[in-house]
């Protein structure tokens, strides 16, 4: 097994997904494309007891391209490429002497790429879609003097996700509600995960601005390795789980092009960063 650092950093990526998501495949030949920046800086984390403990201030920044494209009216390809991923840790200094005790470090590499296929199982008032996502371990799994910096988890995971949802009117406003349940099969000793999510969106200003709220839950099956069962010097953390709540706004500045901004944070967690994450982006929607 490779040395694997903390899932804390990787798990926070999930907190504030930039994905459009939902049970709606793209029509054939249509697509949705987004360039976004996602980041979090945290000096506390949730421990295995759910309490918050301090850690050396750590930052994770992802610049990514996300794309959905309809191969047919039912089958959509989904790609997320964090083409620039930065992970850094602060210097640790003595408050007494101001001397550096531990030097800060940073890496800038590509992150883990996600490739997926979304298949529309049913149409109608409450469409259902099935998505298979493959997590390709293209990121760096351990850099810096302690192998503690990473932009990927070094494992090839496969997630099967079932989405359902529907549109409705909220007074004079258009709205949608969608949810998903997924199982993430992980390799390299990581525990499998159950993933649940709920999203409510409302279109205002004649649907030029969409505001959405997202609830995401990840529950670990806790069937993977721990620091005790891997090689003694591995920097291994596993069994991360959390419940996060996020809000995001998507504003169409032209008919097809828009900008987005969002924030999310964990309501509870185990082995995960205890700080909000942020995202801003620009998107191109071929469906309008």
């Amino acid at each position: 097994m490779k040395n694997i650092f903390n899932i804390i950093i990787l798990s926070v990526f999930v907190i504030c997904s930039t994905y459009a998501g939902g049970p709606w495949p793209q029509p054939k030949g249509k697509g949705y494309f987004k360039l976004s920046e996602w980041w979090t800086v945290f000096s506390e984390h949730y421990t295995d007891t759910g309490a918050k403990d301090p850690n050396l201030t750590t930052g994770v920044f992802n610049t990514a391209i996300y794309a959905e494209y309809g191969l047919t009216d039912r089958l959509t390809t989904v790609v997320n490429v964090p083409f620039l991923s930065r992970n850094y840790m602060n210097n640790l200094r003595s408050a007494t002497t101001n001397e550096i005790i531990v030097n800060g470090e940073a890496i800038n590499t590509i992150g883990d790429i996600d490739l997926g296929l979304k298949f529309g199982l049913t149409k109608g008032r409450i469409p259902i879609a099935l998505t298979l996502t493959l997590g390709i371990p293209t990121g760096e799994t351990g850099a810096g003097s302690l192998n503690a910096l990473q932009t990927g988890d070094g494992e090839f995971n496969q997630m099967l996700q079932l989405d359902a949802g529907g549109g409705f009117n909220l007074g004079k406003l258009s709205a949608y509600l969608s949810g998903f349940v997924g199982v993430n099969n992980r390799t390299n000793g990581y525990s499998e995960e159950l993933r649940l999510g709920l999203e409510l969106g409302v279109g205002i200003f004649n649907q030029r601005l969409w505001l959405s709220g997202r609830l995401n839950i990840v529950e670990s099956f806790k069937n993977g390795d721990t620091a005790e069962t891997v090689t003694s010097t591995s920097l291994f953390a596993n069994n991360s789980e959390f419940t996060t709540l996020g809000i995001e706004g998507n504003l169409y500045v032209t008919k097809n092009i828009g900008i987005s901004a969002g924030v999310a944070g964990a309501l509870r967690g185990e082995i995960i960063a205890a700080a909000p994450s942020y995202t801003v982006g620009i998107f191109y929607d071929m469906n309008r």
Partner: protein
Amino acid sequence: MKNLKFIILIIGVGLFTSCIKDDFVEDTIEATLRITTNLESIEINSKFQFDAMYLNNVGQETDVQLEWSSSDPDVISISDDGLAEAISLGTAIISVTYTEADKRYEDEISLSVGEATVQGVNRISGNITSTSSYVLEGAFVYSETSSGVDVAFMEDYNASTALPGLYLYLSNNRNSIADALEIGAVETFSGVHLYSIDNVAFNEYKYLVYFCKPFNVKVGDGALNF
């Protein structure tokens, strides 16, 4: 054009907030002077070199000018550089002092002169306790060996396996590993186990410190109460 400005803003925000900055650890402690020679008695008509260490306000060993003295030079005499000579049967207190500005640091041990040189107490017990939310507990025995020291953990030792990169150190500052001796990565997370550390004097360090390397935070500690 508006979109281009937005992209530049995104990159700007990223660059501005992603620089390596400084975190600070509160590591101020009381400076101390400690005699590291561990003796109970000294053989008559023999000589013995005494050692002491001054630890500054972060627990860092610092070279300073020491002054040695004996409460009864007719029993044990001691030179300026700490070389003691047992002259007659009896008991004396060997003291070492260091004065910095208006502050005076002192340590002393009581020694008898007898038929043989006898080492002082070279085995103590203590407890590890967690200073974080991670489980870390258990009793240990710290003892002197011919080549250094042993740290033996008892059956009640228990450490969380959720934490990556847990390391054990010997330190003179319970809040910092800046000048600590790294014993090694924790490989046993429950029950009896032993660490043997060479070239360490019995009372050279004051604390066992557990530290998570990747997070750079202290997880727990145990005092070595000599």
